[in-house]
């Protein structure tokens, strides 16, 4: 998508946020057209629910629309991409929506690592009937990702599906880099086991 141009000048991401915070709906619409699909994919991969994902997407951009100019300065292009900033907001709304829909136990998105490892194995186990219906590894993987504890799922979604750097993923997940790495490793490990189980490697 072409850059946002105003009066012959290309407007950078930092300035875009400034304009949105100042009430520029054209800048907001432009940003929506550029980044909404990636925000939607992130939300969909995390929530595995199209309605929740669409709601979180909308809430993300409404949050932008209600930023005050001072809040708009909260985005620093030197610290990360605007997409990462959007995903951070989307994550906040998604988390609230999941809590509200009672689809997340209180300790499933831990601040540290201790709880993550103890997250329910039962959630991870693939439903045999579901696997039978979706006899394709991609679908099996999709369900396996959806069944991961949220902390692991988020790491896998950000790095393996959204192809973000570890640093940016850690920033969005609001965890130290090593925590992100650990979650990613454990998430991949579980996914590998699920796929091996599915394809009869074991």
């Amino acid at each position, binding site marked *: 998508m072409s850059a946002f141009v105003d009066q012959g000048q290309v407007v950078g991401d930092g300035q875009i946020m400034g304009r949105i915070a100042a*009430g520029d*709906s*054209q800048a*907001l*619409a432009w940003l*929506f*057209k550029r980044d*909404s*699909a990636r925000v*939607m*994919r992130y939300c*969909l*991969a995390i929530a595995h629910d199209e309605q929740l994902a*669409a709601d979180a*997407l*909308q809430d993300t*951009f*409404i949050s*932008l*629309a*209600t930023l*005050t100019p001072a809040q708009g300065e909260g985005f620093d292009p030197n610290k990360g991409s605007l997409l990462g900033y959007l995903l951070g907001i989307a994550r906040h709304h998604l988390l609230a929506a999941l809590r509200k829909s009672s689809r997340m136990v209180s300790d499933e998105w831990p601040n540290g690592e201790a709880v993550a490892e103890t997250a329910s194995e039962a959630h991870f186990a693939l439903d045999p009937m579901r696997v039978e219906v979706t006899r394709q*590894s*991609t679908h*099996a*993987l*999709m369900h396996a*990702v959806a069944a991961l504890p949220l902390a692991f799922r988020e790491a896998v979604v950000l790095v*393996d*599906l959204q*192809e973000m750097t570890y640093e940016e993923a850690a920033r969005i997940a609001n965890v130290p880099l090593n925590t992100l*790495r650990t979650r*990613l*490793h454990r998430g*991949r*490990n579980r*996914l*590998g*086991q699920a*796929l*091996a189980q599915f*394809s009869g*490697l*074991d």
Partner: protein
Amino acid sequence: MKTIDPNTFGVTFADSANCDAASETLALSMARLRAELAQVKVPAHALDRMLFATEQAMAARRRLESSTAAPESWLSDLRGRLSRVFATQPPGWSMGLASMAGAVALIVWLGQPSRQAELATQPSRGQDPAAYFMPLDTAGAAIVAVDDTATWLMPLEMPRAQLARFGLPFDPSQAATPVRAEFLMNASGKPVAVRFLP
């Protein structure tokens, strides 16, 4: 049972020299899932819904910001908003003239003598008039139907008594209290529909 080599910790699947069958399967499936997810599009209605909701949110914020400003009549407010909005439209003298004409048309139309006294005494319809857009004329409705991408919303506050100009009942005791309205404008700046918010 095969497991992913723990030595691959922190290494992406593709560049791991030690990746085994399980991790290869995972990497391939992940790539396919990535490609599948890349096909996910934001539904068209989501864009419309978001733009409408954000416009409302921005309007609410503008109202909040302007609440500290000196009070002025809603018609003056409308003039100011029109001039500000049209100042941000794409350049072009024809567009400017059309926008100006639309602004003048809206202000003149809103300033016509009303059936206020007559309508003020009518009983309530028993339903919320804020729930829908009312076409301001048949041609306006047709424009909305065929060219909805070129429309935009203009939020406005006006005295509740102005509801009478749109054929809507109102409580005379609340005549002076403001009511929030949104005018649906076409690309030429002509108001084609209006709705009142609760």
